[in-house]
């Protein structure tokens, strides 16, 4: 089949007119996602973290996961190097050189990595059988192993590189933090927060956590304040001197907001949390999808064009 230059230009013009008439793909985008009514999450404060990794062990215990032995080290204790099929929560260390002053760019800082529980999760959007879902009440991104088909689209979709795949298993599943949903169901809190000695990992309602984060950003560095331990509303407090925070709550607006919020004393890109747009990738992808299929106009136009060209081609042959 041969398309004349003239026909091609006609098609382009027609398509352009249609798009213009539609006021662009933005009109089809879903609006910014609201917080679910009882959204719960975690506030991690790197300036309070002491790097003891008790949360890593508590996570494994609560979720019945095996210890992980890194090749080349003694298989004596759990020493994961990254999130994996048997590690859903990990403490990592940023460091530049041997300058042992915490929470400085020239020194070092810890960061706790696990699922961010996005308000508009890309993994949920990408999951064909809806094995990954966002709980409409608590906002926790949950995983249903019975529905999973093992396509690993979630791994590609996640902007934080969180879902991990059981490569070693014959019937592999996706592994990621589900905010200890089984403990929440019993009225508990996530194991990592319950174990944290300093309150660096703090469980609570996301709305309250956002306020707590704002309170911390407004603190005078070096002055002692009370910091709640384990969960907001707990009776236990620890007095710490406020650190020098980077004036940003990571997760407040990143990719539409997340239910895991972070505070740190070093810029977030240093501790593996990249600068991300405030609009979720899902909103962008949805916008394009919805715009294309809106009222089935574009598919019909494309179908019409194809029929026309095929007819024309048939005519030329005879």
């Amino acid at each position, binding site marked *: 089949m041969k398309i004349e230059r003239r026909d091609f230009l006609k098609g382009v013009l027609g398509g352009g007119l249609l798009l213009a008439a539609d006021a662009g793909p933005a009109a089809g985008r879903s609006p910014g996602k609201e917080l679910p009514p009882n959204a719960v999450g975690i506030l991690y404060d790197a300036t309070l973290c*002491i*790097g*003891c*990794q*008790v*949360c*890593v*062990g*508590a996570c494994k215990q609560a979720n019945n996961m095996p210890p992980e032995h890194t090749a080349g080290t003694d298989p004596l*204790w759990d*020493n*994961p*190097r*990254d999130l994996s099929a048997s590690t859903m929560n*990990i*403490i*990592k*260390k*940023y*460091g530049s050189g041997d300058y*042992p*002053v*915490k*929470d400085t760019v020239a020194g*070092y800082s*810890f*960061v706790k990595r696990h699922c961010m529980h996005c308000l508009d999760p890309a993994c949920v959007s990408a999951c064909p059988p809806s094995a990954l879902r966002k709980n409409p009440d608590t906002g926790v991104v949950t995983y249903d192993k019975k529905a999973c088909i093992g396509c690993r689209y979630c791994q590609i979709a996640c902007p934080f590189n969180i879902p991990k795949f059981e490569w070693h298993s014959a019937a592999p599943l996706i592994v990621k933090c589900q905010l200890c949903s089984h403990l929440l169901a019993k009225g508990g809190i996530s194991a990592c927060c319950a*174990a944290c*000695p*300093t309150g660096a990992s703090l469980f609570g309602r996301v709305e309250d956590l956002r306020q707590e984060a704002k309170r911390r950003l407004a603190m005078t560095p070096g002055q002692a304040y009370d910091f709640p331990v384990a969960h907001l509303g707990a009776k236990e407090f*620890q*007095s*710490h*001197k406020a650190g020098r925070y980077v004036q940003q709550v990571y997760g407040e607006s990143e990719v539409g907001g997340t239910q895991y919020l972070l505070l740190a004393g070093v810029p977030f890109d*240093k*501790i*593996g949390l990249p600068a991300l747009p405030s609009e979720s990738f899902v909103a962008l992808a949805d916008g394009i999808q919805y715009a294309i299929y809106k009222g089935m106009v574009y598919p019909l136009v494309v179908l019409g064009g194809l029929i026309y060209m095929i007819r024309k081609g048939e005519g030329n042959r005879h």
Partner: protein
Amino acid sequence: MKERDFARIQERLNGISRRDFMKFCTVMAASLGLPLADASRLAAAVSAPRRPPVIWLSGQACTGCTESLLRPTHPTLEHLILDLISLDYNETLNAGAGHQAEAALQASIKENYGKFILVIEGAIPTKDGGVYCMIGGRPFGEIVKETAAKAAAVVAIGSCASWGGIAAADPNPTGAMGAPEFLQGTTVVTIPGCPPNAYNFLSTVIHFLTFGKLPALDDKARPRFAYGRLIHENCERRPHFDAGRFAVKFGDEGHRKGYCLYKLGCKGPMTYANCPAILFSDVGSGSWPVGTGHPCFGCTEPGVGFHIPLHTQASLQYITPAAGHPPIIEKRGGGASVGAAALLGAVAGAVVGGGAMVLKNLEKEDETAGKDQK
């Protein structure tokens, strides 16, 4: 030290053996971080015929510092302290009292002008003209100032003399302060601790006697050999900290198993001292707070001991983190090596070649089969 040299001083040492004396000097050298060969120099210095005079002034003190020098159970230590050093004046240990003691003090100052070591124990009250500590009718501060001006070296022993200690705890009603703050302009070596470790004091004094100068000091005038590292860095329970194993309550399972005491308020991460390395004086194994199951309360650190509540968690600003944490971006393995690539290539080649041969043979078979059918 030769046997006959030792024989001269043996009587003064209450008849201890030469072997025990040399052992003591070796321990001294080790705690100072000196080569063992220097032990004999120390031995010669401390057994010199003229014993170094020490004048010991006590102010706002509980006398725990004096006690800590006397209590070590090492059989010869108290003799070494009291007999090797000529302790000319110490209110606790003086045989005389009242005017007699004061006269001895003045005589010693006069006789040893510019040669004696002044040891200050206890804080110095400054409010209301120093009336909160009067000795012989004079304010303690006045006596300290007068004596310090005539001393060869000034040593502040204990937290109170070093930076105020418990006497200067809020609200500090007597305006108590440590000797370095009170004697501004004079170098005052501080041996903080509540009570201080006898070895840290003796090592400093003996260093001065042997080398004629003070050991290297840090910014708070503490000898570096003793106060150079954070307690947390040398703590026997540090592995529990790095593994996240904490005692949560006194007497709980973690506490009985000897887990890290950070959660109970241990100030080890912000306190510089050698307690975990040499333990307390000569008391025996496990003889330091953390060894007995109590969190460190930061007695050697100004602004920590008696200032931060006992069970408030410590700040970890200056500790060296464990080496075991994974980095932010974990390095992956490099690409295939040349050898591996060559081997893989060879295998792939063999497979392709074999496959081609099989195909060729199949074609032949097809052809022959076709011919047969025809």
